[in-house]
């Protein structure tokens, strides 16, 4: 008796699993066959109209696709629109989102997570928000992680300039790595080596200068696992600057520290002078 009951339960569960799998496969099949569906209709429509070769999307002629598309469309109304979007539209749609929205979308469900974590989408966003450089780079953990790391470094780099604006020596001493190999080359051309000398040099700078207001532009960051370097241009005022700046950071104990700063006067040519005037 028991074994028969057990068999019935097992059979029912198996049947349910099979039905769910079938449903899942059908959903995937529809969301994966967009171009061929569209192409199929265009091609068969063209064939019905005339015998000439039309340059519509190539597709696989399959009568079942007609019924399938209609069924899929029916299932869509009232069901999840985002999930039923064909891949080519999804990728295009993702390109309209900013990074917080893309992240929040990935948190909605597993299908959205896969779509919104798409490597190419994050690479495109990286190029849009940061730089077109590094196009040939293949980040070790994928482009989403690389975008996240870049955003973290760019924020920290901005923090460096805030500290200078506020002339807070306490913040600056916290910002640098306490080590003997750290170096700082100020715009004056003086090199300071080792943590203590570097912090002292900033103390001097803060004592002498009034609050400076400057613009930072063309920030380019290259982020590796434990090290990052950032180049930028700073524009102060007509009298001083603009400067080429390079900052280098190291990652220790869960945070980034500055280990190198180098500022040098930018060689002025006609193009740069024009930029300054229009700044």
């Amino acid at each position, binding site marked *: 008796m028991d074994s028969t009951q057990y068999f019935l339960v097992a059979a029912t569960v198996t049947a349910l699993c099979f039905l769910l799998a079938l449903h899942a496969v059908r959903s995937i099949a529809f969301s994966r066959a967009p171009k061929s569906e569209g192409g199929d209709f265009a091609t068969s429509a063209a064939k019905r*109209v005339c015998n000439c070769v039309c*340059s519509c999307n190539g597709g696989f002629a399959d009568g079942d696709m007609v019924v399938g598309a209609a069924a899929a469309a029916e299932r869509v109304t009232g069901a999840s629109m985002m999930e039923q*979007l064909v891949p*080519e539209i999804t990728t295009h749609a993702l390109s309209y*989102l900013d*990074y917080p*929205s893309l992240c929040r979308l990935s948190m909605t*469900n597993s299908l959205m997570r896969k779509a919104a974590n798409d490597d190419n989408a994050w690479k495109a966003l990286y190029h849009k928000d940061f730089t077109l450089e590094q196009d040939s780079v293949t980040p070790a953990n994928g482009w989403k992680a690389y975008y996240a790391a870049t955003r973290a470094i760019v924020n920290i780099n901005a923090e460096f300039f805030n500290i200078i604006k506020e002339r807070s020596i306490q913040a600056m001493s916290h910002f640098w790595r306490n080590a003997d190999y750290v170096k700082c080359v100020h715009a004056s051309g003086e090199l300071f080596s080792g943590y203590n000398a570097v912090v002292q040099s900033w103390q001097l700078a803060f004592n002498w200068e009034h609050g400076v207001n400057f613009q930072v532009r063309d920030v380019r960051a290259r982020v590796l696992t434990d090290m990052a370097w950032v180049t930028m241009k700073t524009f102060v005022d007509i009298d001083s600057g603009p400067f080429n700046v390079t900052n280098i950071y190291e990652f220790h104990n869960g945070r980034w520290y500055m280990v190198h700063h180098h500022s040098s006067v930018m060689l002025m040519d006609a193009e740069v002078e024009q930029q300054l005037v229009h700044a």
Partner: protein
Amino acid sequence: MSSSKSNKIVKLESSDNKTFEVEEAVAVQSETLKNMVDDGCANDTIPLPNVNGKILEMVLGWCKKHVDETVTGDELNKYEADFLDLDQADLYGLLMAANFLNVKGLLDRVLQRVADMIKGKKPEEIRRIFNIKNDFTPEEEEEIRLENAWAFD
């Protein structure tokens, strides 16, 4: 193949057998239809079995408005804004039709609208708006929260 575009009429038939006649200039806003016209395949009625009458009418209205030279820039902007005030089912249908018919301007506008519906919303709100079912386990939810924490300082 006709070279004077001003007189040619293109006939279209939706999935629910409604026919529409539009000027060639209007029809070729759709890259798909433009290719057909250029290849000389648009002499008879073109069947569009995966676009229904309601949606096709909307798309053609859009195309007509964009070809009309008497419409000012402001009018066009207002038209586009009102045009996209649709429920989700229509928005989806429009999206699929704009993609299939390859009407670039319309596709961009609809995608922008969908993006605007997502922007600034929390995941629970996004799920509600788009009827997305949450299929994460509590462990996965935590994993995902950590994975995305960097974006929400």
